[in-house]
């Protein structure tokens, strides 16, 4: 779109927005498990991903891997907890969520990065920041309006929907539960495009598992245990039902109320044993 004026149409713009979002999803996957055997190649790939979403993709390490996966910032709420927004009209919560979660995330990342021993992270983060904003700035300099409309808009779309996934997958769930902390989107076509990121419960419980294994693991470990209403067949259906066809925010379920610690420990042990075999 930047170089070929004929491509500046709705279809290409939608594709660019989708690819920006997918670059953040790829970033998420690769920061759980590197794509390349070479560490240098993985670090270099992060520049590409950072440009895709106009934010340093390494921010995912503290914000997602270390905080979000525990639903907790060492005693304080997850930086991307759905509770940070509280409009009565639920659609506004979906729209506003990145406006709160974004700054909280980057503030949290800054605090995390200041700790001693994280100089390598700070260097990489800064380089990604400079690369993403630098390249975008160069594009803006040479053709401002085209870059703004067909590069920056998709970048911001991708980054903001990447944040919104947090409220979509966790709002109304019981984050203290072993199995009912996340909402899954189990459509096969959806997961083909999304690299199995619809299977969110198993991803939280087994963060190191490669994304190609998540579907089988979900069927094996999650489906028998989860509240079945948290397995949504379609994300579009869920979004329409939750944000367009109703005004108020659904209540937070307490699907965990009948769980007890002994049962949870037994299930965890059973799941661990299944995974080993």
């Amino acid at each position: 779109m930047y170089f070929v004026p004929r491509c500046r149409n709705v279809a290409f713009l939608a594709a660019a927005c989708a690819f920006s979002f997918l670059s953040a999803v790829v970033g998420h996957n690769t920061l759980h498990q590197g794509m390349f055997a070479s560490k240098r190649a993985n670090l270099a790939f992060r520049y590409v991903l950072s440009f895709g979403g106009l934010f340093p993709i390494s921010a995912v390490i503290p914000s997602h891997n270390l905080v979000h996966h525990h639903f907790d910032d060492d005693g304080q709420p997850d930086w991307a907890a759905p509770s940070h927004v509280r409009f009565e009209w639920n659609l506004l919560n979906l729209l506003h969520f990145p406006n709160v979660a974004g700054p909280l995330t980057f503030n949290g990342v800054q605090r995390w990065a200041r700790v001693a021993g994280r100089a390598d992270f700070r260097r990489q983060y800064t380089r990604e920041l400079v690369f993403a904003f630098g390249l975008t700035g160069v594009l803006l300099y040479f053709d401002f309006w085209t870059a703004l409309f067909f590069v920056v808009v998709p970048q911001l779309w991708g980054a903001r929907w990447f944040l919104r996934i947090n409220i979509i997958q966790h709002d109304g769930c019981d984050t203290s539960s072993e199995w009912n902390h996340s909402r899954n989107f189990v459509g096969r076509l959806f997961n083909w495009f999304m690299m199995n990121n619809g299977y969110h419960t198993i991803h939280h419980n087994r963060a190191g598992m490669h994304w190609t294994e998540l579907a089988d693991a979900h069927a094996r470990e999650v489906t028998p245990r989860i509240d079945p209403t948290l397995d949504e067949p379609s994300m579009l259906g869920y979004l329409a039902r939750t944000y367009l066809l109703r005004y108020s925010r659904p209540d937070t379920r307490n699907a965990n109320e009948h769980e007890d610690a002994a049962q949870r420990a037994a299930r965890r042990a059973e799941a661990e044993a299944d995974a080993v075999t």
Partner: protein
Amino acid sequence: MLSREVMGVACLGVVWVTALLVAGAAWQDLRDLLAVLARARRAVVGVAETDLAEWSVEQIGRALDVGKSARAIGFHDRAFRSEIFGGSVRVGESLVSVAPSTHGEVWIDEARRLEAVSGGADFDAAYAQARKAKGFQRVVRVRVQAGDRVWLVGDDLVSTLDPAAFCRRKALGLALFIPLELAACAAATRLALTLPHFGTASIAGAVACLAFFLGVTPLAVSLREGARRPHEAFLRNQWRAEIGPSRAGASPTRREKSLSQRKTSTSVL
């Protein structure tokens, strides 16, 4: 084909939706503060006859990279607790009794909170712990003691600062932010729509709109965090020690140095 006009209008729409959402969220915080203010106006002011309440924060300190000339521990606030012990407060000639509660709020003025975190431990020992994975853990406590001037709001708020003044000050900040934020958005929009459309002035307006879009949300979040009520307001303090022949030893940061001794108790676990 997506024309510049269509994309420009769409982008301005997104900027304005964001501006209105930010304003709406600030209004929610303002409304909450005004509700507390309405209660705080009926506060009873007196002098504690007994140790009345305690506020505490559980902190974990981690060594920070602050250059070669200093060492520092950065503290993360893990959990805030307020406990009202119960007791009595002298108001003029009469005594007002306060019921015990573990669900109330204890508001401590910032000077006392900062004083409470400013010492009580050996920096070197704390720093050694802070460099480890578990960090340096401590609980900072400030007690509302006999003889302290206190404000009582209902039976669930004990404060060492004027709660109405606090709410007014924070509410004023939020109340100013809402129109100023919308005015900034309007100004950027006006500049972006300067004739000829998509000319140099228009580009400056688009840059202003983009800067507004990227900058207003961190500002709003910072304002929101700054308006947290004192019983749960973040300290996130640092403890710093300069390294050098003439400046060995630990010194507290921020305003801690200038604070005079007051009746507080600090314990470090």
